[in-house]
Each structure stands twice: as C-alpha cells, then as structure tokens.
C-alpha cells in the first residue's frame, strides 16, 4: 500500500515536472495571440466589412435602377396616355392602366367628363380596328373558299400537304378573327360602361346644367357612333339604353333626340 502511494506520488511529481518543462512561454503565447487576433481582424472581419460595403453598393445600384425604371415607366405612361396609343400598341395596356388611375384619382365633378372622354377613346379604337381588319376578314373568306376548292379537285399527297398547310394558316386567321371579335366586344362593353357611368352621374344630378348639356351631347354622339359600328347589342338593351338616355337628357336636347330616334328607327 505504501509502495503504491509512493509510486502514485512519484508519478504525480514527474507529470508535474514534465508539464512545467513542456509549458509554453507566456511571452510567446501573448505575441502569438496578438498575431492570431490581428489576422482575424485583418482577414475575416475586414471580409465582413467588405461584404457590408458590397451590400450597400448593391442597394445603391438597385435603387438607381429602380428609379431609372420608374422614370422610364412614368415617361412611357404619360406618352401612352397623351398620344392615345391604339389598341395593339405595346404601350396600350399602360395607357389603360393610366386611365384606371385617372378615374381613381379624379374628383367627382370631373368624373363624368373623364368617362365621356374614355368612352370616346374606346369608340375611336373600335372604329380603327374595324378599318384595319376589314380586308383581313375578306381574305379569310376567300381562303376558306380556296381550300374547299382545292380539297375537291386534287387528291395527290403534295396537294394534301399543301392543303394541310393552307388549312393551318386559315385556322390561324380564323383564330385571329375570333380574337378581333373578342377585343371589339370587350371595347364596346367598356365603352358602354363608361357611357352608363356618365348617365348615372347625370341621374344623380350633381352636375351643373351647362355641363349636363355638354355631356349629353357627347354621350349621344358616342351612342350614335356605337350604332354605326358592327355592334352585337340586343334590341332590348339598345332600347333600354336609349330610353334611359332620353329620360335623363331628353329635356336638354329634345329636338335633336327626336331626329336621332327617327334616323335610328329608319336604320333598324
């Protein structure tokens, strides 16, 4: 037992002695620590700082791009609205968006005038599309006739291939025509909505008499213009709209209204 204890004490002592011998110099540890910490500051922390700097730069760059785009966008929007770009123009949707914003921001007194302006715009657009695509519709009919002729007269493979190609083209044309019709219907619908909004405003009688007269004249012109185009409106809604117009605008433009109705009845 005593020997064991002696051995353990001896072991403890030699370990202590060895540790002391293999102990690093405190001066060395301090200088090494400083070198280590300096390197952290120089390389890792500075990398963090440079990342922050890059982030700030990126933020500035993004802001500049955003402002540039906003400037260009607003310029394009103003141009689209002022130049009254036509349907199919790349900026047309922007123009519609600006119109929507204008309606949202307009004061109640200006609203009927704005609706009238927009209804007039839609009417102009419808007329332009009709003019531009009138030929195309005729072409479609001719093409269809051509295909029918070709189908009955030839049976060879080449002709069939040609026929298929022509058929495809025709289908595309038909699709285009369909889209055109949809667009026209959409525009008409929007125009009538604008007109309804104007009439509603007149019904509320929140507008001065002079303004009502002007508005009624504009509205009647638009409605006449609507009839001139190839509208698909039902007889019922047409009569309803005119009677509503007559009810609200009749007393301001009696004479003119009678004449118009006579003309309309004659046309129909």
């Amino acid at each position, binding site marked *: 037992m005593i020997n064991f204890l002696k*051995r353990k004490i*001896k*072991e403890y002592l*030699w*370990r202590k*002695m*060895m*540790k*002391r*011998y*293999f*102990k*690093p*110099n405190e001066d*060395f*540890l301090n200088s*090494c*620590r400083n*070198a*280590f*910490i300096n*390197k*952290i*500051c120089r*390389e*890792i*922390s*500075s*990398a*963090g700082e440079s990342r922050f700097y890059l982030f700030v730069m990126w933020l500035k760059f993004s802001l500049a791009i955003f402002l540039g785009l906003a400037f260009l966008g607003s310029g394009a929007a103003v141009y689209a609205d002022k130049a009254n770009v036509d349907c199919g123009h790349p900026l047309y949707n922007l123009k519609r968006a600006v119109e929507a914003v204008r309606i949202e921001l307009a004061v109640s007194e200006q609203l009927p005038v704005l609706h009238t302006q927009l209804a007039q715009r839609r009417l102009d657009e419808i007329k332009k599309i009709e003019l531009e695509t009138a030929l195309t519709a005729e072409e479609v009919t001719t093409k269809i006739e051509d295909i029918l002729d070709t189908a009955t007269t030839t049976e060879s493979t080449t002709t069939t291939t040609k026929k298929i190609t022509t058929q495809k083209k025709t289908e595309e044309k038909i699709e285009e025509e369909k889209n055109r019709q949809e667009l026209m219907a959409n525009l008409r619908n929007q125009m009538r909505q604008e007109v309804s909004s104007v009439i509603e405003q007149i019904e509320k009688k929140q507008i001065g008499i002079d303004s009502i007269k002007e508005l009624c004249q504009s509205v009647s012109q638009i409605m006449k213009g609507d009839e001139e185009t190839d509208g698909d409106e039902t007889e019922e809604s047409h009569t309803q709209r005119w009677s509503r117009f007559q009810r609200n605008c009749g007393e301001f433009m009696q004479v003119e209204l009678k004449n118009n109705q006579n003309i309309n009845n004659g046309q129909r």
Partner: protein
Amino acid sequence: MTDRFNKLARRLRKGDRRAGEEIFNNFSRQIFRFFMVRTGSRETAEDLTQEVFLKLIDKIKTFNESLGSFSGWFWQIAKNSVKDYYRKKKAVALSDMLMKNKENSDFLEGKNDPKAALKIEEIKDLIKDLKEEEQEVFSLRYLSDMSYRQIAKIMRKSETSLRVLAHRVNKRIRKVFNND
C-alpha cells in the same frame, strides 16, 4: 464540449475576435506541448503553434460541422503541420537539443537541480524512442490531461487501444523514474 467549439468556430468564421481568443486560450497550450513532444524543439514548437493558428484563419471557411467536431478538425490541421514540417526539414534529434538557460530556469523554477535536469534528459531520450502515436498519446494524455474520449476523436482510434498505448508509455516513463 464539441458543441461549444463548433459554436466558437461559427462565430470565428463571422470574424468574432472574442471567439478567436477563446479558441486560442483553449488550444494554444495543448498544441504547443504536442509540437514540443513531436519536434523536440521549443523554437520549432513555437513556430508551428503560430503557423497552425494562422492556418486556422485561412481554413476556417472550409470547416464543415456536419463532417465532425471543430476540435477534431483543428487537431488534424496541427498533425498535418508536423507532417509537413518533417517533410520539409530533417527532424532535429532530441538528443542534440540543448536546453537553454531560460528553459532550465523555467523548468527548475530557479532551483539548480541537476538531478531533475538529468531526468528531463532521460525523458527526452525516451520520447525520441517512442512511436509517433505514442508521442501523441503522451502529449495529449500526460501533458494536456485530455480524456480518452477526446484523444480518440483527435487520433481517430478506439478508447481501448488508446488506453493500451497510454499504459505502455506510462510503464516506460515509470521505469525511468524508478531507476533512482
């Protein structure tokens, strides 16, 4: 323990000086002793210790927590540094290493003890004769007081085989001290 150092490593990666300081305080002495045992030279051990800590900053971005603990990874850097050192230079023979006056005074704490100095010389000779892994066990177990579990992680050996190694080293050292 592992989690603690992994957290410190994460902080160090972000450039936290305090985390770096904590890591230094925890590992510097152990690593110095390890180098001292492996190279037998105080100067070389100091150079390698400094080098390994500077290397740590360069490599900290490559440390992947999912592959293991930070301490294991860091010790691996230290071990590779020794290997690189031996690859580059001829090992300094421990027997040729002369203890400087300063070292002597450190070790003897001002007491002129020729008996102890002699023992140290004997131990140095013994260390020189030890195998590489035995030297590592000696440094980590007897000088740095690490647990077998920690040493097992560093040396990638089982605890049982480490115990056997440590016992063998202990036996040889005891023989030196029992020769009185």
